[in-house]
Protein backbone atom coordinates (compact mmCIF):
# COMPACT_ATOMS: atom_id res chain seq x y z
CA UNK A 1 0.00 0.00 0.00
CA UNK A 2 1.88 3.08 -1.19
CA UNK A 3 1.26 6.66 -0.14
CA UNK A 4 -0.83 7.00 -3.28
CA UNK A 5 -3.79 5.41 -1.51
CA UNK A 6 -3.85 6.86 2.02
CA UNK A 7 -7.58 6.15 2.42
CA UNK A 8 -6.86 2.44 2.55
CA UNK A 9 -5.42 2.98 6.01
CA UNK A 10 -8.84 3.77 7.34
CA UNK A 11 -10.47 0.39 7.68
CA UNK A 12 -14.16 0.65 8.30
CA UNK A 13 -14.98 -1.90 10.93
CA UNK A 14 -18.44 -2.70 9.65
CA UNK A 15 -17.56 -6.34 9.34
CA UNK A 16 -16.99 -6.66 13.06
CA UNK A 17 -20.60 -5.85 13.85
CA UNK A 18 -21.97 -9.22 12.76
CA UNK A 19 -24.02 -9.41 15.93
CA UNK A 20 -24.31 -7.96 19.41
CA UNK A 21 -22.09 -8.43 22.47
CA UNK A 22 -24.32 -11.03 24.14
CA UNK A 23 -24.10 -13.29 21.11
CA UNK A 24 -20.35 -12.72 20.94
CA UNK A 25 -20.12 -13.75 24.59
CA UNK A 26 -21.80 -17.08 23.78
CA UNK A 27 -19.45 -17.61 20.87
CA UNK A 28 -16.30 -16.84 22.78
CA UNK A 29 -17.35 -19.18 25.60
CA UNK A 30 -17.64 -21.97 23.08
CA UNK A 31 -14.28 -21.09 21.61
CA UNK A 32 -12.45 -20.94 24.92
CA UNK A 33 -14.02 -24.22 26.07
CA UNK A 34 -12.80 -25.76 22.80
CA UNK A 35 -9.32 -24.33 23.24
CA UNK A 36 -9.17 -25.64 26.78
CA UNK A 37 -10.36 -29.08 25.63
CA UNK A 38 -7.74 -29.14 22.87
CA UNK A 39 -4.96 -28.32 25.30
CA UNK A 40 -6.22 -30.91 27.76
CA UNK A 41 -6.50 -33.51 24.98
CA UNK A 42 -2.87 -32.89 24.02
CA UNK A 43 -1.75 -33.47 27.61
CA UNK A 44 -3.87 -36.60 27.76
CA UNK A 45 -2.22 -37.89 24.58
CA UNK A 46 1.20 -37.28 26.16
CA UNK A 47 0.02 -39.06 29.28
CA UNK A 48 -0.98 -42.11 27.22
CA UNK A 49 2.41 -42.11 25.47
CA UNK A 50 4.12 -42.48 28.82
CA UNK A 51 1.61 -45.02 30.10
CA UNK A 52 1.90 -47.28 27.10
CA UNK A 53 5.73 -47.42 26.98
CA UNK A 54 6.82 -51.05 26.53
CA UNK A 55 9.16 -51.15 29.55
CA UNK A 56 7.28 -48.68 31.64
CA UNK A 57 9.00 -47.73 34.87
CA UNK A 58 8.31 -45.44 37.80
CA UNK A 59 9.77 -42.50 35.91
CA UNK A 60 7.25 -43.05 33.11
CA UNK A 61 4.41 -43.31 35.60
CA UNK A 62 5.48 -40.08 37.27
CA UNK A 63 5.52 -38.37 33.85
CA UNK A 64 2.11 -39.95 33.13
CA UNK A 65 0.64 -38.49 36.29
CA UNK A 66 2.25 -35.09 35.62
CA UNK A 67 0.64 -34.93 32.18
CA UNK A 68 -2.73 -35.79 33.73
CA UNK A 69 -2.32 -32.93 36.20
CA UNK A 70 -1.56 -30.57 33.33
CA UNK A 71 -4.62 -31.79 31.47
CA UNK A 72 -6.86 -31.04 34.44
CA UNK A 73 -5.18 -27.66 34.90
CA UNK A 74 -6.04 -26.81 31.30
CA UNK A 75 -9.63 -28.01 31.66
CA UNK A 76 -10.80 -28.73 35.21
CA UNK A 77 -13.91 -30.49 33.94
CA UNK A 78 -12.32 -32.83 31.44
CA UNK A 79 -14.00 -36.12 32.30
CA UNK A 80 -11.42 -38.51 30.81
CA UNK A 81 -8.51 -36.80 32.56
CA UNK A 82 -10.37 -36.92 35.86
CA UNK A 83 -11.17 -40.61 35.43
CA UNK A 84 -7.54 -41.45 34.64
CA UNK A 85 -6.38 -39.51 37.70
CA UNK A 86 -8.88 -41.40 39.85
CA UNK A 87 -7.41 -44.63 38.48
CA UNK A 88 -3.88 -43.41 39.18
CA UNK A 89 -4.80 -42.76 42.83
CA UNK A 90 -6.44 -46.18 43.06
CA UNK A 91 -3.43 -48.04 41.66
CA UNK A 92 -0.61 -45.77 42.85
CA UNK A 93 0.51 -44.86 39.34
CA UNK A 94 2.96 -41.98 39.59
CA UNK A 95 1.39 -40.91 42.88
CA UNK A 96 0.82 -42.28 46.35
CA UNK A 97 -2.37 -44.35 46.59
CA UNK A 98 -5.24 -42.47 48.13
CA UNK A 99 -8.82 -43.66 48.36
CA UNK A 100 -10.11 -40.15 49.18
CA UNK A 101 -8.42 -38.57 46.19
CA UNK A 102 -9.64 -41.39 43.96
CA UNK A 103 -13.21 -40.88 45.06
CA UNK A 104 -12.94 -37.10 44.84
CA UNK A 105 -11.86 -37.30 41.22
CA UNK A 106 -14.49 -39.87 40.37
CA UNK A 107 -17.20 -37.60 41.77
CA UNK A 108 -15.81 -34.67 39.76
CA UNK A 109 -15.73 -36.81 36.61
CA UNK A 110 -19.26 -38.04 37.21
CA UNK A 111 -20.59 -34.51 37.29
CA UNK A 112 -19.36 -33.72 33.80
CA UNK A 113 -19.67 -37.07 32.10
CA UNK A 114 -21.97 -37.88 29.24
CA UNK A 115 -24.03 -41.11 29.55
CA UNK A 116 -21.42 -42.93 27.44
CA UNK A 117 -18.61 -41.87 29.76
CA UNK A 118 -20.65 -42.75 32.83
CA UNK A 119 -21.10 -46.21 31.38
CA UNK A 120 -17.33 -46.52 30.85
CA UNK A 121 -16.76 -45.41 34.43
CA UNK A 122 -19.17 -48.07 35.59
CA UNK A 123 -17.08 -50.69 33.83
CA UNK A 124 -13.85 -49.18 35.18
CA UNK A 125 -15.15 -49.53 38.71
CA UNK A 126 -16.59 -52.96 38.14
CA UNK A 127 -13.66 -54.57 36.39
CA UNK A 128 -10.48 -52.55 36.24
CA UNK A 129 -10.11 -51.02 39.64
CA UNK A 130 -8.63 -53.64 41.91
CA UNK A 131 -10.17 -52.64 45.18
CA UNK A 132 -7.96 -54.89 47.15
CA UNK A 133 -4.84 -53.44 45.62
CA UNK A 134 -1.77 -53.50 47.80
CA UNK A 135 -3.67 -53.48 51.04
CA UNK A 136 -5.25 -50.09 50.42
CA UNK A 137 -8.56 -51.73 51.09
CA UNK A 138 -7.59 -55.00 52.73
CA UNK A 139 -11.17 -56.12 53.17
CA UNK A 140 -11.90 -55.31 49.60
CA UNK A 141 -14.25 -52.48 48.81
CA UNK A 142 -17.85 -53.59 48.47
CA UNK A 143 -18.82 -49.97 48.01
CA UNK A 144 -16.85 -50.13 44.79
CA UNK A 145 -19.51 -52.31 43.23
CA UNK A 146 -22.23 -49.97 44.55
CA UNK A 147 -20.40 -47.03 42.98
CA UNK A 148 -20.32 -48.96 39.74
CA UNK A 149 -24.07 -49.55 39.92
CA UNK A 150 -24.59 -45.85 40.58
CA UNK A 151 -22.73 -44.92 37.41
CA UNK A 152 -24.67 -47.41 35.31
CA UNK A 153 -27.93 -46.22 36.82
CA UNK A 154 -27.14 -42.58 36.01
CA UNK A 155 -26.36 -43.47 32.44
CA UNK A 156 -29.35 -45.81 32.24
CA UNK A 157 -31.70 -43.08 33.42
CA UNK A 158 -30.42 -40.94 30.59
CA UNK A 159 -31.30 -43.65 28.10
CA UNK A 160 -27.94 -45.29 27.48
CA UNK A 161 -28.76 -48.76 26.17
CA UNK A 162 -25.57 -50.56 27.20
CA UNK A 163 -25.79 -49.09 30.71
CA UNK A 164 -29.41 -50.21 30.96
CA UNK A 165 -28.46 -53.72 29.88
CA UNK A 166 -25.49 -53.91 32.28
CA UNK A 167 -27.65 -52.63 35.14
CA UNK A 168 -30.08 -55.41 34.37
CA UNK A 169 -27.27 -57.96 34.60
CA UNK A 170 -26.18 -56.57 37.95
CA UNK A 171 -29.70 -57.04 39.28
CA UNK A 172 -29.60 -60.62 38.02
CA UNK A 173 -26.37 -61.40 39.86
CA UNK A 174 -26.88 -59.10 42.85
CA UNK A 175 -23.68 -57.12 42.20
CA UNK A 176 -23.72 -53.93 44.21
CA UNK A 177 -27.52 -54.34 44.58
CA UNK A 178 -29.83 -56.98 45.98
CA UNK A 179 -30.93 -59.57 43.45
CA UNK A 180 -34.15 -58.49 41.82
CA UNK A 181 -35.49 -60.27 38.76
CA UNK A 182 -38.29 -57.78 38.20
CA UNK A 183 -35.93 -54.85 38.05
CA UNK A 184 -33.56 -56.86 35.87
CA UNK A 185 -36.39 -57.47 33.40
CA UNK A 186 -37.39 -53.81 33.59
CA UNK A 187 -33.91 -52.67 32.59
CA UNK A 188 -33.53 -55.34 29.90
CA UNK A 189 -36.81 -54.18 28.36
CA UNK A 190 -35.64 -50.58 28.44
CA UNK A 191 -32.42 -51.52 26.70
CA UNK A 192 -34.24 -53.59 24.11
CA UNK A 193 -36.74 -50.76 23.46
CA UNK A 194 -33.84 -48.46 22.84
CA UNK A 195 -32.96 -50.57 19.84
CA UNK A 196 -29.36 -49.50 19.73
CA UNK A 197 -27.89 -52.37 21.66
CA UNK A 198 -28.54 -55.78 20.07
CA UNK A 199 -27.31 -57.92 23.02
CA UNK A 200 -30.20 -56.46 25.00
CA UNK A 201 -32.73 -57.95 22.60
CA UNK A 202 -31.13 -61.40 22.97
CA UNK A 203 -31.08 -61.01 26.75
CA UNK A 204 -34.77 -60.16 26.82
CA UNK A 205 -35.60 -63.11 24.58
CA UNK A 206 -33.76 -65.60 26.76
CA UNK A 207 -35.47 -64.18 29.84
CA UNK A 208 -38.90 -64.39 28.30
CA UNK A 209 -38.25 -68.02 27.42
CA UNK A 210 -37.19 -68.80 31.01
CA UNK A 211 -40.27 -67.27 32.60
Amino acid at each position, binding site marked *: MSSEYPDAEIVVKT*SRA*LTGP*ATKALTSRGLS*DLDATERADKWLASAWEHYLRPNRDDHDLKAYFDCLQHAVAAKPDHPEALIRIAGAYARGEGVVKSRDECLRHLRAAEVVSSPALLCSMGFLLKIEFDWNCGGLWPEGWPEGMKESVRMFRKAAEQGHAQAQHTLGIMYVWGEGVSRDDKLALFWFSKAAENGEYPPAQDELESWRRKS
Partner: protein
Amino acid sequence: MVKEIIKQLTAEEEELVAKREVLARLEVELADRELAFASLKAELSAFEGLYLRRVGILYAELDEWNARLAELRAEQEGTSEARTEAAQARAQAQESYSAAHGEAAEVQPFAPSPELKRLYREAAKRVHPDTATDEKDRARRERLMKEVNAAYAVGDEDAIRRILADLHNSPDAVQGSGVGADLVRVLRQIRQVRNRIAVIEMEISDLSQCDIARLKAKSDVASAEGRDLLAEMATSIEARVNSLRRTVESASKEVRK
Protein backbone atom coordinates in the same frame (compact mmCIF):
# COMPACT_ATOMS: atom_id res chain seq x y z
CA MET B 1 -9.31 9.84 -55.65
CA VAL B 2 -10.76 9.25 -52.27
CA LYS B 3 -9.12 11.22 -49.64
CA GLU B 4 -8.87 9.11 -46.57
CA ILE B 5 -8.96 11.07 -43.43
CA ILE B 6 -7.02 9.29 -40.78
CA LYS B 7 -7.87 10.58 -37.40
CA GLN B 8 -4.83 10.76 -35.24
CA LEU B 9 -5.57 10.29 -31.56
CA THR B 10 -3.95 12.80 -29.35
CA ALA B 11 -1.76 11.58 -26.52
CA GLU B 12 -4.51 12.48 -24.08
CA GLU B 13 -7.10 10.50 -25.99
CA GLU B 14 -4.80 7.48 -26.07
CA GLU B 15 -4.28 7.82 -22.34
CA LEU B 16 -8.08 8.00 -21.79
CA VAL B 17 -8.63 4.82 -23.79
CA ALA B 18 -5.89 3.01 -21.89
CA LYS B 19 -7.21 4.14 -18.50
CA ARG B 20 -10.75 3.19 -19.42
CA GLU B 21 -9.47 -0.34 -20.05
CA VAL B 22 -7.72 -0.36 -16.69
CA LEU B 23 -10.93 0.81 -15.01
CA ALA B 24 -12.97 -1.87 -16.76
CA ARG B 25 -10.62 -4.60 -15.50
CA LEU B 26 -10.62 -3.13 -12.00
CA GLU B 27 -14.42 -3.01 -11.96
CA VAL B 28 -14.53 -6.73 -12.69
CA GLU B 29 -12.03 -7.38 -9.92
CA LEU B 30 -14.01 -5.18 -7.56
CA ALA B 31 -17.24 -7.05 -8.28
CA ASP B 32 -15.41 -10.30 -7.56
CA ARG B 33 -14.04 -9.09 -4.25
CA GLU B 34 -17.38 -7.63 -3.20
CA LEU B 35 -18.93 -11.03 -3.94
CA ALA B 36 -16.29 -12.77 -1.88
CA PHE B 37 -16.82 -10.33 1.00
CA ALA B 38 -20.63 -10.55 0.89
CA SER B 39 -20.42 -14.35 0.73
CA LEU B 40 -18.06 -14.53 3.69
CA LYS B 41 -20.33 -12.35 5.80
CA ALA B 42 -23.38 -14.43 4.87
CA GLU B 43 -21.59 -17.74 5.58
CA LEU B 44 -20.36 -16.58 8.95
CA SER B 45 -23.79 -15.25 9.82
CA ALA B 46 -25.33 -18.59 8.90
CA PHE B 47 -22.76 -20.54 10.93
CA GLU B 48 -23.37 -18.26 13.89
CA GLY B 49 -27.08 -19.08 13.62
CA LEU B 50 -26.30 -22.79 13.58
CA TYR B 51 -23.93 -22.47 16.54
CA LEU B 52 -26.52 -20.55 18.58
CA ARG B 53 -29.23 -23.10 17.85
CA ARG B 54 -27.09 -26.13 18.70
CA VAL B 55 -24.64 -24.91 21.32
CA GLY B 56 -25.60 -21.38 22.39
CA ILE B 57 -28.95 -22.49 23.82
CA LEU B 58 -27.16 -25.04 25.98
CA TYR B 59 -24.93 -22.36 27.49
CA ALA B 60 -28.14 -20.41 28.10
CA GLU B 61 -29.62 -23.46 29.87
CA LEU B 62 -26.46 -23.80 31.97
CA ASP B 63 -26.79 -20.16 32.99
CA GLU B 64 -30.46 -20.71 33.83
CA TRP B 65 -29.69 -23.55 36.25
CA ASN B 66 -26.83 -21.52 37.72
CA ALA B 67 -29.25 -18.69 38.33
CA ARG B 68 -31.80 -21.00 40.01
CA LEU B 69 -29.09 -22.45 42.22
CA ALA B 70 -27.90 -18.99 43.20
CA GLU B 71 -31.49 -17.96 43.91
CA LEU B 72 -32.05 -21.01 46.11
CA ARG B 73 -28.88 -20.25 48.02
CA ALA B 74 -30.01 -16.64 48.48
CA GLU B 75 -33.30 -17.95 49.88
CA GLN B 76 -31.46 -20.28 52.25
CA GLU B 77 -28.68 -17.98 53.42
CA GLY B 78 -30.43 -14.62 53.14
CA THR B 79 -27.14 -12.69 53.13
CA SER B 80 -26.82 -9.64 50.89
CA GLU B 81 -23.85 -11.27 49.13
CA ALA B 82 -25.96 -14.29 48.26
CA ARG B 83 -28.70 -12.01 46.97
CA THR B 84 -26.30 -9.99 44.85
CA GLU B 85 -24.82 -13.16 43.38
CA ALA B 86 -28.32 -14.41 42.62
CA ALA B 87 -29.21 -11.16 40.88
CA GLN B 88 -26.02 -11.29 38.81
CA ALA B 89 -26.61 -14.91 37.88
CA ARG B 90 -30.18 -14.13 36.85
CA ALA B 91 -29.02 -11.19 34.70
CA GLN B 92 -26.45 -13.44 33.02
CA ALA B 93 -29.12 -16.07 32.37
CA GLN B 94 -31.42 -13.49 30.78
CA GLU B 95 -28.64 -12.17 28.58
CA SER B 96 -27.67 -15.63 27.38
CA TYR B 97 -31.29 -16.53 26.74
CA SER B 98 -31.95 -13.48 24.55
CA ALA B 99 -28.72 -13.98 22.66
CA ALA B 100 -29.45 -17.66 22.00
CA HIS B 101 -33.05 -17.05 20.96
CA GLY B 102 -32.66 -13.73 19.17
CA GLU B 103 -32.50 -12.78 15.51
CA ALA B 104 -28.96 -14.05 15.07
CA ALA B 105 -30.12 -17.55 15.98
CA GLU B 106 -32.69 -17.57 13.19
CA VAL B 107 -30.28 -17.17 10.28
CA GLN B 108 -30.59 -20.17 7.98
CA PRO B 109 -27.80 -21.87 6.02
CA PHE B 110 -26.41 -19.82 3.14
CA ALA B 111 -26.27 -21.57 -0.22
CA PRO B 112 -26.04 -19.11 -3.15
CA SER B 113 -26.87 -20.49 -6.58
CA PRO B 114 -24.48 -19.81 -9.49
CA GLU B 115 -27.21 -17.57 -10.91
CA LEU B 116 -27.37 -15.51 -7.72
CA LYS B 117 -23.62 -15.04 -7.81
CA ARG B 118 -23.71 -14.04 -11.45
CA LEU B 119 -26.46 -11.51 -10.80
CA TYR B 120 -24.55 -10.08 -7.85
CA ARG B 121 -21.35 -9.68 -9.85
CA GLU B 122 -23.19 -7.88 -12.61
CA ALA B 123 -25.04 -5.61 -10.22
CA ALA B 124 -21.85 -4.83 -8.29
CA LYS B 125 -20.15 -3.80 -11.53
CA ARG B 126 -23.03 -1.58 -12.54
CA VAL B 127 -23.88 0.15 -9.26
CA HIS B 128 -20.74 0.19 -7.18
CA PRO B 129 -20.38 3.50 -5.30
CA ASP B 130 -16.68 3.69 -5.97
CA THR B 131 -17.30 3.96 -9.70
CA ALA B 132 -19.44 7.06 -9.10
CA THR B 133 -18.61 10.15 -11.02
CA ASP B 134 -19.88 12.72 -8.53
CA GLU B 135 -21.37 13.03 -5.06
CA LYS B 136 -25.01 12.77 -6.13
CA ASP B 137 -24.20 9.71 -8.22
CA ARG B 138 -22.30 8.20 -5.32
CA ALA B 139 -25.22 8.65 -2.93
CA ARG B 140 -27.59 6.96 -5.35
CA ARG B 141 -25.16 4.12 -5.92
CA GLU B 142 -24.59 3.58 -2.21
CA ARG B 143 -28.32 3.14 -1.74
CA LEU B 144 -28.52 0.66 -4.62
CA MET B 145 -25.46 -1.28 -3.44
CA LYS B 146 -27.03 -1.69 0.00
CA GLU B 147 -30.12 -3.15 -1.63
CA VAL B 148 -28.03 -5.51 -3.74
CA ASN B 149 -26.09 -6.69 -0.67
CA ALA B 150 -29.27 -7.21 1.31
CA ALA B 151 -30.84 -9.17 -1.55
CA TYR B 152 -27.74 -11.36 -1.86
CA ALA B 153 -27.64 -12.14 1.85
CA VAL B 154 -31.17 -13.60 1.69
CA GLY B 155 -30.79 -15.19 -1.74
CA ASP B 156 -33.33 -12.93 -3.45
CA GLU B 157 -32.45 -13.26 -7.15
CA ASP B 158 -35.57 -11.41 -8.27
CA ALA B 159 -34.71 -8.31 -6.26
CA ILE B 160 -31.31 -8.07 -7.92
CA ARG B 161 -32.91 -8.61 -11.33
CA ARG B 162 -35.31 -5.74 -10.63
CA ILE B 163 -32.47 -3.42 -9.71
CA LEU B 164 -30.62 -4.31 -12.90
CA ALA B 165 -33.80 -3.79 -14.98
CA ASP B 166 -34.32 -0.35 -13.41
CA LEU B 167 -30.80 0.61 -14.38
CA HIS B 168 -31.58 -0.10 -18.02
CA ASN B 169 -34.36 2.46 -17.84
CA SER B 170 -32.31 5.22 -16.28
CA PRO B 171 -28.96 5.51 -18.00
CA ASP B 172 -26.00 6.56 -15.94
CA ALA B 173 -25.41 10.26 -16.02
CA VAL B 174 -22.36 10.98 -18.04
CA GLN B 175 -21.06 14.48 -18.34
CA GLY B 176 -18.96 14.81 -21.40
CA SER B 177 -16.93 17.95 -21.29
CA GLY B 178 -13.79 17.12 -23.08
CA VAL B 179 -11.12 14.50 -22.99
CA GLY B 180 -9.20 16.28 -20.24
CA ALA B 181 -12.16 16.26 -17.86
CA ASP B 182 -13.00 12.67 -18.77
CA LEU B 183 -9.44 11.62 -18.02
CA VAL B 184 -9.50 13.30 -14.62
CA ARG B 185 -12.77 11.53 -13.83
CA VAL B 186 -11.52 8.11 -14.92
CA LEU B 187 -8.33 8.51 -12.91
CA ARG B 188 -10.40 9.38 -9.84
CA GLN B 189 -12.61 6.35 -10.40
CA ILE B 190 -9.55 4.12 -10.71
CA ARG B 191 -8.19 5.49 -7.47
CA GLN B 192 -11.50 4.94 -5.68
CA VAL B 193 -11.85 1.39 -6.95
CA ARG B 194 -8.28 0.42 -6.05
CA ASN B 195 -8.83 1.89 -2.62
CA ARG B 196 -12.03 -0.07 -2.08
CA ILE B 197 -10.39 -3.33 -3.20
CA ALA B 198 -7.64 -2.77 -0.62
CA VAL B 199 -10.21 -2.04 2.08
CA ILE B 200 -12.15 -5.21 1.22
CA GLU B 201 -9.00 -7.32 1.54
CA MET B 202 -8.38 -5.87 4.98
CA GLU B 203 -12.00 -6.42 6.01
CA ILE B 204 -11.92 -10.03 4.80
CA SER B 205 -8.71 -10.65 6.70
CA ASP B 206 -10.21 -8.96 9.77
CA LEU B 207 -13.38 -11.01 9.54
CA SER B 208 -11.38 -14.23 9.30
CA GLN B 209 -9.91 -13.52 12.74
CA CYS B 210 -13.20 -13.09 14.54
CA ASP B 211 -14.40 -15.73 16.99
CA ILE B 212 -17.14 -17.15 14.81
CA ALA B 213 -14.73 -17.49 11.88
CA ARG B 214 -12.28 -19.38 14.08
CA LEU B 215 -15.07 -21.65 15.31
CA LYS B 216 -16.21 -22.30 11.77
CA ALA B 217 -12.65 -23.12 10.73
CA LYS B 218 -12.41 -25.70 13.52
CA SER B 219 -15.79 -27.10 12.57
CA ASP B 220 -14.73 -27.44 8.93
CA VAL B 221 -11.53 -29.27 9.92
CA ALA B 222 -13.58 -31.64 12.07
CA SER B 223 -16.07 -32.28 9.24
CA ALA B 224 -13.19 -33.23 6.97
CA GLU B 225 -12.29 -35.86 9.60
CA GLY B 226 -15.89 -37.06 9.73
CA ARG B 227 -16.61 -35.41 13.10
CA ASP B 228 -19.41 -33.07 14.05
CA LEU B 229 -17.77 -30.43 16.25
CA LEU B 230 -20.99 -28.70 17.27
CA ALA B 231 -22.45 -32.05 18.35
CA GLU B 232 -19.34 -32.80 20.45
CA MET B 233 -19.57 -29.39 22.10
CA ALA B 234 -23.27 -29.92 22.74
CA THR B 235 -22.70 -33.33 24.37
CA SER B 236 -20.12 -31.92 26.73
CA ILE B 237 -22.31 -28.99 27.81
CA GLU B 238 -25.37 -31.25 28.16
CA ALA B 239 -23.52 -33.34 30.71
CA ARG B 240 -22.85 -30.22 32.77
CA VAL B 241 -26.47 -29.06 32.37
CA ASN B 242 -27.86 -32.41 33.53
CA SER B 243 -25.59 -32.50 36.52
CA LEU B 244 -26.40 -28.95 37.52
CA ARG B 245 -30.11 -29.60 37.11
CA ARG B 246 -29.91 -32.56 39.48
CA THR B 247 -28.03 -30.41 41.99
CA VAL B 248 -30.71 -27.74 41.80
CA GLU B 249 -33.52 -30.28 42.11
CA SER B 250 -32.07 -31.84 45.24
CA ALA B 251 -31.21 -28.43 46.70
CA SER B 252 -34.77 -27.23 46.15
CA LYS B 253 -36.07 -30.29 48.04
CA GLU B 254 -33.85 -29.18 50.95
CA VAL B 255 -35.33 -25.70 50.93
CA ARG B 256 -38.89 -27.05 50.88
CA LYS B 257 -38.24 -29.04 54.07
